[in-house]
């Protein structure tokens, strides 16, 4: 079982988010792994553990700070890490990122077959949720998205996913791209031995040239969308306190109507 997990380095959601030139400012000390990718790592580790053998390769497309995300993956138990980092990749949109990830998976696949790519359900800084599908399209593999339950048997993955009031069961044959929901599992806490091991564990750094990425497919040059502006939203308005003297229900209804919430 050989599984690639994509992990993104994102600003800590607890910290203030800043923008410069329409890009998220990534402060080294403040960044962390995209929490939703921890569910992907957990899913991968569980599959490898159930298989009794295998390898989990964490891959991050990021600046040098992406190492933070890889280290977190190591702490949870990932066996190998690849940081895809290159100035040429700066400014990549979903398409560019997916192209870089696909090239990485292809290179890994050339060494030894990759059975599965697992991603989180979204990145908490972009909330696009499209990279898994774009990645599958690049690879020509099936995509199973937003899995709540994952089962692997006889070379096929079957997932359960929940959308509104529908529960679906979907299945596809390996190799494939799978994104897992945050309800799919409870990511394990790193254990002390792995925390220590992760301190010195080496990851590989691959450049755009290593992956033979075309300059116009990635980075600012390859971006198909342009961010015109990005700024933090103004803080919320003062809360409206209503002391309930029998009219509380009416005040609440008026508030909901006024704000188009019903």
């Amino acid at each position: 079982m050989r599984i690639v997990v994509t992990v993104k380095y994102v600003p800590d959601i607890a910290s203030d988010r800043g923008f410069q030139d329409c890009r998220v400012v990534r402060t080294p000390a403040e960044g962390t792994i995209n929490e939703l990718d921890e569910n992907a790592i957990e899913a991968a580790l569980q599959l490898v553990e159930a298989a009794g053998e295998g390898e989990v390769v964490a891959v991050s497309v990021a600046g040098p700070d992406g190492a933070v995300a890889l280290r977190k993956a190591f702490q949870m138990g990932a066996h190998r890490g690849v940081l895809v980092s290159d100035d040429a990749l700066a400014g990549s949109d979903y398409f560019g990122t997916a192209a870089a990830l696909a090239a990485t998976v292809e290179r890994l696949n050339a060494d030894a077959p990759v059975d599965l790519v697992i991603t989180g359900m979204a990145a908490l800084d972009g909330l696009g949720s499209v990279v898994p599908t774009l990645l599958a399209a690049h690879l020509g593999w099936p995509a199973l998205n937003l899995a709540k339950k994952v089962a692997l048997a006889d070379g096929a993955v079957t997932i359960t996913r929940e959308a509104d009031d529908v529960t679906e069961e979907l299945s596809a044959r390996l190799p494939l791209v799978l994104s897992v929901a945050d309800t799919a599992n409870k990511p394990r806490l790193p254990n002390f031995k792995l925390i220590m091991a992760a301190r010195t564990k080496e990851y590989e750094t691959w450049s755009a040239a290593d992956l033979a990425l075309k300059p116009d497919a990635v980075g600012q040059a390859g971006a198909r969308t342009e961010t015109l502006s990005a700024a933090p939203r103004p803080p919320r308005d003062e809360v409206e306190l209503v002391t309930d003297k029998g009219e509380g229900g009416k005040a609440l209804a008026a508030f909901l109507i006024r704000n188009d919430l019903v």
Partner: protein
Amino acid sequence: MSTAALTDLFDVESELAPHERETRDTVRAFVDVEIRPHIARWFADAYFPREIVPAMAGLGLLGMHLEGYGCAGRSAVEYGLAMQEIEAGDSGLRTFVSVQGSLAMTAIAKNGSEEQRQRWLPGMAAGEIIGCFGLTEPTAGSDPGTMATTAVLTGGEWVLNGAKRWIGLASIADVAVIWAKALSDDGTPQVRGFLVPTATPGFTATPIEPKLSMRASIQCDIELTDVRLPEDAILPHNPGLRGPFACLNEARYGIVWGALGAARDSLEAALAYSAERLQFGKPLAAYQLTQEKLANMALAVAQAQLVALRLGRLKDEGRLDRHMISAGKLNSCRVAIEVARQARTILGGNGITLDHSPLRHANNLESVRTYEGTDEVHTLVLGQHLTGIAAFR
């Protein structure tokens, strides 16, 4: 700023290496998810949550400071940080970690044969085998040298007789480290350790109930009536009281940190409550008397944390002396129980319920200041260190 950052008056945080912080944060996250939501109920019901033992083992908490045999092999500082976080949850659960790792496993690691280590330690590190440590007796507490339990070698078998009291986990343990007097080669009685599978006929453990302290953990009376063990059940190394004392020193060191977890949690509870609770038209936090309480508590905890860290660094350098452990244990226990009680006052009447942690911590700390050497005993150790005169008897 989080309250944790607020109460770290001397930025002790920055003295910690990244992996030390990660270890601490991991245990903190574990406590938040696995202990905090349930601890009031466990304490009320006098229930030891055996179901969380596998997760504790998974982190590497059991025998965390030991090398090899499936143990995590972490430094003294990391071990201390972990104990502090667990005890911020509850002293009873830290007590479990101490009994399993610092007492039972350490007894085997320090005094056991290679075979005994191989046989017991990996399972204990994995939480599959629970151990206990039987030193105290009904009539021998602070003065364990007067123990009455005996071990006699007859016909190639050891036969143990006697009684133990206050033995943590004994009723759920798989193996007990029992300290008993056996005749040495020159015919004088000497304290020796024995590995006693608790299923051995003649071994009975009865939980001590009801308790007003340490309710989320178990302590037992043990009776040993003609308990027959193979000849190789004896721990071969370190005959005499230095056998158990070496283990007690490990556990005491853990308490230096642990007690401060309970103190910090009490302080944070009081701080948060004082900001919300309005009396006489203002939050309690706005009154000078309350601020004095909070300031004194924060100062005491922060100072004691500096002491703990200093002792941890010394231990990692192999320079921690006996009197330092006594000083640290005495200091942390004193500070912690005082802070927990003071924190309770800020909570007013609500503070006597299990909705808030300080009184639970204070009650637990009555045990913490008693076991592993009482406040008085450690005071006497320091007195002896300073004066050269032993005043125990």
